[in-house]
């Protein structure tokens, strides 16, 4: 697989184990971006000349690819900067529409900051309250608690499809069903989910699904918000500017139809087209087999870590786990471990993984994280273990 990824192919010694932060990019995506800038670059939805018409067709074709990939209609696919912007859009715009004092927003304690802070802002503005579903000791969502917490005041339920810090696939179907019973709108943070699983938003029946291109083999700076058309139509615009208006007078403006209503300004045209190429790449993969490969590497690492008495892990493998291994070390700070790994050209993540509330649940301030992916092999895990032994020698 490494040969399909120019950065990895060009540096065979590099061991990249931080794919949960961002994936490496396949050649096809890089080449598509370059082709766009070399031969197709023009602004979209504006020029009435062929170059612009061509760019617009390529941009809209990318939207159709995304829509087909997640089983949505074209107008339900809003291009954003990423997951973070997509969640902010919903929390702000749908928050305006739906939140009143005393209402509740339900999240989990394991969320990424980008699925916490936008809701806190919306809640503060509306006088609403944010509540958090706890995790069980096995670091799975406590569904009984969720059942008890969801009530008629719950206006939004938002949670990750897959936790970036734990690698656990959350039981989103069950949570969506619970939310439906009280008429709450659901948002799935698919930053990790869309990179590992085939997504069918109709089958999930979620109200919103957000993801980032860069974690799913695509470019940075582009992401997607899927929203049910009826909701998006009812919601006020998030940003004002070009493209999102139908008519502007000095007294006021009327909004363009979907999806343009939520795409103010010149979009990330190259990014969207590159994302289209990334989806083509994902469509060429056997996703379940890829997931099994990642999980097997995670199991290899977990098993080897049982030989390290100072290492504490938090998650047991299962079918609802994608192979991400997060751990704490009794005597090595995660920063130091990451630096030792780096000296051997091994990239791992150290820190709170933008999930400080979860770190509190785990009882640590920071952890190290190894996130294997399709281009990693057993020897990458062995290289990491060697670096870990070296760090133990140095810091013991």
């Amino acid at each position, binding site marked *: 697989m490494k040969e399909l990824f120019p950065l990895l192919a060009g540096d065979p010694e590099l061991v990249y184990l931080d794919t949960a932060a961002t994936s490496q990019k396949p050649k096809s995506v890089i080449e598509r971006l370059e082709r766009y800038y070399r031969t197709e670059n023009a602004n979209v939805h504006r020029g009435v000349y062929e170059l612009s018409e061509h760019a617009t067709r390529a941009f809209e074709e990318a939207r159709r690819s995304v829509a087909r990939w997640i089983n949505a209609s074209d107008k339900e696919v809003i291009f954003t900067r990423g997951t973070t912007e997509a969640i902010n859009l919903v929390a702000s715009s749908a928050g305006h529409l739906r939140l009143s004092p005393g209402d509740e927003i339900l999240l989990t304690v394991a969320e990424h900051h980008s699925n916490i802070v936008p809701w806190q802002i919306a809640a503060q503005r509306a006088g609403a309250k944010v509540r958090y579903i706890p995790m069980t000791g096995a670091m799975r969502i406590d569904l009984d608690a969720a059942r008890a917490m969801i009530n008629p005041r719950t206006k939004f339920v938002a949670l990750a499809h897959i936790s970036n810090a734990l690698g656990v696939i959350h039981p989103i179907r069950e949570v969506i069903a619970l939310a439906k019973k009280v008429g709450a709108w659901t948002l799935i943070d698919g930053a990790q989910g869309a990179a590992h699983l085939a997504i069918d938003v109709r089958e999930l029946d979620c109200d919103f699904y957000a993801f980032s291109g860069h974690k799913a083999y695509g470019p940075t700076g582009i992401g997607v918000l899927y929203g049910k058309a009826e909701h998006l139509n009812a919601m006020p615009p998030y940003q004002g500017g070009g493209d999102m208006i139908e008519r502007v007078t000095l007294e006021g403006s009327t909004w363009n139809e979907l999806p343009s209503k939520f795409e103010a300004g010149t979009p990330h045209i190259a990014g969207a087209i590159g994302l289209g190429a990334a989806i083509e790449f994902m469509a060429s993969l056997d996703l379940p087999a890829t997931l099994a490969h990642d999980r097997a590497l995670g199991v290899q690492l977990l098993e080897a870590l049982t030989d390290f008495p100072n290492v504490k892990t938090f998650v047991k493998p299962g079918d609802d786990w994608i192979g991400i291994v997060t751990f704490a070390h009794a005597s090595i*700070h*995660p*920063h*130091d471990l990451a*630096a030792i790994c780096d000296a051997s050209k091994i990239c791992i993540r*150290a*820190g*709170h993984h933008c999930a*400080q509330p979860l*770190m509190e649940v785990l009882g*640590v*301030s*920071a952890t190290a994280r190894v996130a294997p992916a399709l281009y990693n092999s057993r020897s990458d895990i062995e290289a990491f273990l060697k670096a870990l032994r070296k760090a133990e020698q*140095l*810091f013991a």
Partner: protein
Amino acid sequence: MPAGPQADWKELILDHYKNPRFFGEPTGWRWDAEEHNRTCGDHVHVYLSQADGLASLMFTGAGCSLCIASSSLMCSLLQNVDLETSRSTLGQFQRVWDQGAPNEAAETWQLIAALRQYPVRSRCVRLPWQALQKITEVWAGESLV
């Protein structure tokens, strides 16, 4: 960058981490300041004791090797010093952190300058110095009255 092989300064930093100088809470300290880095849970607590108008620093805390080594180096520089030296050492840290250490600078500054190659961890290194900044301001306010 100090002279000699790259491993040298790394070993010296590691030594400051494993055997931090001036570690502990002194009895009868005059001022203190605490700093946290919430992104990785590091925290340092810096104490200033005074004798005959001169100040000495000690620290406690937990953190990564850069944070602890930086604290240890900082306290090594500030033993039996007056307010002016405390201020100028802060200024010197800022200069070294921004521009690196001149060749003729002391080894302590060369070590601090070596830490500049970890920009992502700059907050770890700066943590004890931020505490010193606070303490120095209090000290300066006191000496005005």
